[in-house]
């Protein structure tokens, strides 16, 4: 097992030596192109850093505007009148509402005539003549 490890180590070391030698012997043209690529990358990183806030601030402003607009648009409209809402829990206001409504008064008058007619005809509520 140890012998195998030694042989693997030998292969590993030799491969590394050969690879390092090939890296060292790269031609000038390749080395120059790699350096140029590196400078471009470093420059791109600086540009990305400096322009990041210029990109995000307008984007955040647009996003905030859209959120506000959607919030306003989505808010349900109040269809009930304030008087109706207030009257729902207050019996006194029912009368006011009825008095304000002309049709409701007609109904009250009609109902009185109906009860008078019932009294005259002598028919009780169960339907038998009295």
């Amino acid at each position, binding site marked *: 097992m140890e012998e195998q490890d030694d*042989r*693997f180590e030998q*292969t*590993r070391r*030799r*491969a*590394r030596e*050969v*690879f390092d*030698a*090939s*890296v*060292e*012997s*790269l*031609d*000038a*043209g*390749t*080395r*120059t*192109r*790699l*350096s140029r*690529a*590196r*400078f*471009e*990358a*470093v420059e*791109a*990183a*600086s540009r*990305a*850093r*400096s322009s990041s806030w210029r990109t995000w601030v307008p984007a955040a402003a647009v996003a905030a505007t859209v959120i506000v607009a959607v919030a306003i648009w989505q808010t349900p409209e109040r269809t009930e009148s304030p008087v109706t809402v207030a009257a729902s829990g207050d019996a006194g206001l029912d009368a006011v509402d009825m008095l304000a409504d002309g049709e409701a008064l007609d109904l009250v008058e009609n109902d009185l005539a109906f009860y008078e007619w019932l009294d005259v005809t002598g028919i009780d509520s169960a339907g038998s003549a009295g």
Partner: protein
Amino acid sequence: MGSFASLPIDRMRVVADDARSDAGEAPLEQSIELNRFLAGVERSAFRIAQMAVRNRDDALDIVQGAMLRLARSYGRRPSEEWKPLFYRILYNGIRDSQRRRKVRSRVFGLFPGQRLDDDFDVEDPLERVADAGPDPSQRVMAGEAMQRLEKALAALPARQQEAFALRCLEGMDVAETATAMGCSEGSVKTHYFRALHTLRERLGEVW
């Protein structure tokens, strides 16, 4: 008393740090750090890419793309994370290039007489600049050994090639290699052991 005395010094440090940051010194330091990192990996990354795609210009494009991607997307990450990220991007580039090349060769195979665009490459004048490298005999010997290594490596499955290149040639540890390859540390160990075993058999004792 001592704690009171240290307060102004701490405050001064904070102010100095803020001032340095305002003056843009921190980004400058980051740029220097990134430049140092890329300078340290660019040549071996190029050789690894060249071994994988067997084309100098494609390898240069792949390394350039990996540098740009790392700088733009991960330039602000801690520098300790750069190496595995860079090699992960590099190997993605290698795989893309190999895929494109396969498609291109299939397409050109349909039209006999057509040549791949590599044949039309214009020579870069920089290639004619004199080298200050090792002497020619050393270069020939190293070149022959490298050719044998390249040939043996090319015969390995892709994942074994990747594990061997990162662990042995680039000298990354198991955890970094696992991050770069996007697999578990156990898989890295298996791929690396198999690669080493096969290379040992193929290259022999005297290599």
